[in-house]
């Protein structure tokens, strides 16, 4: 009954999303004033989708094996948290989560948007309904999560052990909040293009959504990167895997949108430009969903390939993106031009930011999809990986990081002061970093060296907007911007240090033997069995020493029973100045065990920087919310 209730809720919600679309059409034709009704419909639709998601969680928690999805992905002997996470660790469940977030975003938009004109709000909710309708259809026709299995099997097949990790429990939902949060920016842009109401008020309504989605994307990407780093046991933190790129592309677009919406909100400029970016940002989310869910590209994330689902998603993608671009083409000429600005101004700085981010986005997009086009055009199979992305996107990203130092120092409309004077200290620090890097580490690659220099330049420069200001009277949003920009410098330091200074050792060792990994001496003390709730393991005991301190690391090779799989459980020891990373391989048949050791100086700064960037976004979000709250209630 639980599964049927969930399915019924999905059908109802689909009907309501259709109603939203119809109400929008009626409102735009001037037939009815639909604002009150469409708000109510959007809220109920959100509640129904949430109910369906709750029903799916319930059948997973109860391990109801008569539901096909549970039988294929769960197992009675699985820890509770992974039973929950198993609900979205598969195609159907993750699509339901996607739609649920989409519907809830619509409901929140209906409940909390105040600044918008009623017509624009109705149009935006109609657009949100249209988006939801397509994805409900996809669920109900091609990916029903509640399909029954008759007869029910005696036991489920279990969840992929790689996914049985606390990282998994929160990584996909976080990313989805980001992906789908951008749908509101898309709907608001479409709504505003329909009503012609593009201006500062729209930007102020759009900004919290973009900011929140961007925060979730930042956190999701950071967490996903760390998850891949410790779970895959490859010692890397970014693989330019198509699915990683699928999360990076919306992030790049959202970052650009965040900055252009700031211009629109503050100055009323960059109208058409911001609408375009809003459309592109959510389009990238849908492209990402298509890439991941169709399994069309070779990827560590690929699930079973199902061409009919891929075609369905591609048709939806084409429909929504095509319609939005058509609307943009038809309406953009009618938009009023924003107020002018000079070549040296905050606006121009933000345009430069947007252009560079767009070029990086284009480069990642082409590289990610090129294998598809090449195969379709010539039948040749190929893959595009790190050599391409690092060589092409790397220098652009460094240029952008260097320019981030300048933008916040410019004033709106027209900059009169000589800006370079204020950058003397950062320039001096960057020059010293360059000199020191040549003396201390002459052999490192050019990109890591430039990365270190760019970080040394950006870190002090990003703090300049706070100089000569009273810290207590500086708006929270400014603190947020400074923190996020400083976070870029921190993450950049980690990336450059990792690729410049990592030391790797790969060898087979007998118990009692000692290996060298960078500055560390690592002794293999012995091996012993270990066991967990649904796995057994071989565990190595390693003693790592460097002068004074001694660390003990215990990497494992785990054997899961359901489904039968082996995984490597890396042992990672975090110190203030880096991480020691150990992976236990296989026995070589002569009493030796393969060991792979890495010493990675300052690698943790990558994720620490990511968290700082997200935290900066959070400060800005709260700062703005508090300000508008205070204005409403105390002004």
């Amino acid at each position, binding site marked *: 009954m639980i599964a049927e209730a969930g399915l019924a809720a999905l059908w109802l919600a689909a009907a309501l999303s259709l109603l939203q679309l119809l109400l929008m059409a009626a409102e735009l034709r001037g037939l009815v004033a639909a604002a009150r009704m469409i708000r109510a419909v959007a809220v109920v639709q959100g509640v129904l989708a949430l109910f369906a998601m709750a029903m799916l969680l319930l059948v997973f928690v109860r391990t109801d094996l008569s539901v096909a999805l549970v039988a294929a992905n769960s197992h009675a002997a699985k820890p509770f948290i992974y039973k929950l996470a198993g609900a979205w660790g598969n195609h159907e469940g993750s699509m339901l989560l996607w739609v649920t977030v989409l519907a809830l975003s619509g409901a929140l938009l209906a409940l909390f948007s105040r600044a918008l004109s009623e017509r624009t709000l109705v149009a935006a909710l109609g657009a949100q309904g249209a988006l939801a309708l397509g994805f409900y259809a996809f669920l109900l026709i091609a990916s029903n999560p509640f399909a029954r299995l008759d007869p029910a099997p005696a036991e489920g097949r279990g969840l992929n052990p790689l996914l049985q990790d606390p990282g998994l429990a929160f990584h996909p939902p976080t990313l989805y909040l980001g992906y789908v949060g951008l749908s509101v920016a898309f709907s608001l842009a479409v709504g505003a293009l329909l009503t012609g109401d593009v201006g500062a008020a729209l930007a102020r309504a759009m900004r919290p959504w973009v900011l929140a989605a961007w925060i979730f994307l930042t956190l999701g990407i950071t967490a996903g990167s760390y998850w891949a780093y410790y779970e895959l046991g490859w010692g890397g933190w970014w693989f330019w895997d198509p699915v990683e790129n699928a999360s990076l592309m919306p992030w790049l677009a959202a970052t650009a949108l965040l900055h252009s919406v700031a211009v629109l909100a503050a100055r009323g400029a960059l109208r058409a430009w911001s609408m375009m970016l809003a459309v592109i940002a959510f389009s990238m989310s849908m492209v990402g969903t298509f890439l991941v869910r169709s399994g069309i590209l*070779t990827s560590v994330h690929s699930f*079973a390939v199902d061409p009919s689902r891929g075609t369905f998603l591609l048709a939806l993608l084409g429909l929504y993106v095509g319609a939005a671009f058509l609307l943009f083409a038809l309406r953009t000429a009618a938009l009023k031009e924003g107020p*002018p600005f000079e070549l040296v101004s905050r606006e121009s700085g933000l345009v430069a930011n947007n252009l560079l981010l767009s070029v*990086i986005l*284009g480069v990642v997009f*082409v*590289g990610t999809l090129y294998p598809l086009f090449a195969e379709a055009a010539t039948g040749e199979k190929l893959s595009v*990986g790190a050599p391409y992305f690092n060589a092409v996107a790397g220098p652009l990203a460094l240029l952008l990081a260097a320019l981030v130092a300048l933008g916040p120092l410019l004033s709106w409309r027209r900059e009169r002061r000589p800006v370079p004077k204020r950058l003397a200290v950062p320039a001096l620090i960057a020059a010293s970093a360059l000199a020191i890097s040549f003396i201390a580490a002459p052999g490192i690659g050019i990109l890591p060296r430039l990365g270190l220099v760019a970080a040394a330049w950006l870190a002090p420069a990003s703090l300049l907007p706070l100089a000569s200001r009273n810290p207590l009277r500086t708006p929270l949003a400014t603190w947020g911007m400074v923190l996020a920009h400083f976070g870029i410098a921190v993450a950049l330091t980690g990336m450059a240090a990792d690729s410049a200074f990592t030391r790797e050792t*790969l060898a087979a060792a007998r118990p009692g033997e000692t290996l060298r990994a960078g500055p560390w001496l690592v002794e293999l003390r012995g091996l012993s069995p270990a066991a967990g709730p649904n796995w057994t393991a071989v565990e190595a005991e390693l003693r790592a020493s460097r002068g004074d301190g001694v660390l003990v690391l215990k990497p494992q090779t785990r054997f899961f029973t359901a489904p039968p799989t082996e995984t490597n459980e890396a042992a990672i020891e975090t110190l203030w100045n880096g991480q020691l990373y150990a992976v236990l391989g296989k026995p070589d048949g002569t009493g030796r065990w*393969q060991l792979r050791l890495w010493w990675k100086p300052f690698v943790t700064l990558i994720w620490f920087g990511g968290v700082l960037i997200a935290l900066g976004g959070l400060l800005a979000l709260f700062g703005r919310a508090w300000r508008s709250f205070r204005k409403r209630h105390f002004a």
Partner: protein
Amino acid sequence: MSLKPKHQRLALVAAAAVAVLAAVLLAMLGLKDRAAYFYTPADIAAGKAAEGKAMRLGGMVAAGSIRRAGDGVTIGFTVTDGGARTPVTYRGIVPDLFREGSGVIAEGRMQNGTFVADNILAKHDERYMPPQLGNQAAEHQAGKTLQR
């Protein structure tokens, strides 16, 4: 320098067009020699793969072909597509599902007739089959059925 709003919009449109063009040009230049083509042992036997160029090799690990070197971390094996065979060496820890008779994709380059792999791609899931290999296995299966 101050522009009229209309001219400013034109300038922005031009800038956007330049950005899009730049992105496509940069991408194409970068892809020219950095895309790794996917080859089967038959392609390599036909001389399609250039020495030293990054590429991917896909096929099945031939039965009885896995040999371990004295250092304990280097292995050699043969990849086959049913007909042609390519010798492969790899220094590293092989993924969990790497075994004789199973599908494999290796990243690396040809050196003196041997494929030197930097990376052996993991099959993370019982159900996971790289699409490229999926087709090939299906074709191989179909071929076998026809022969019977």
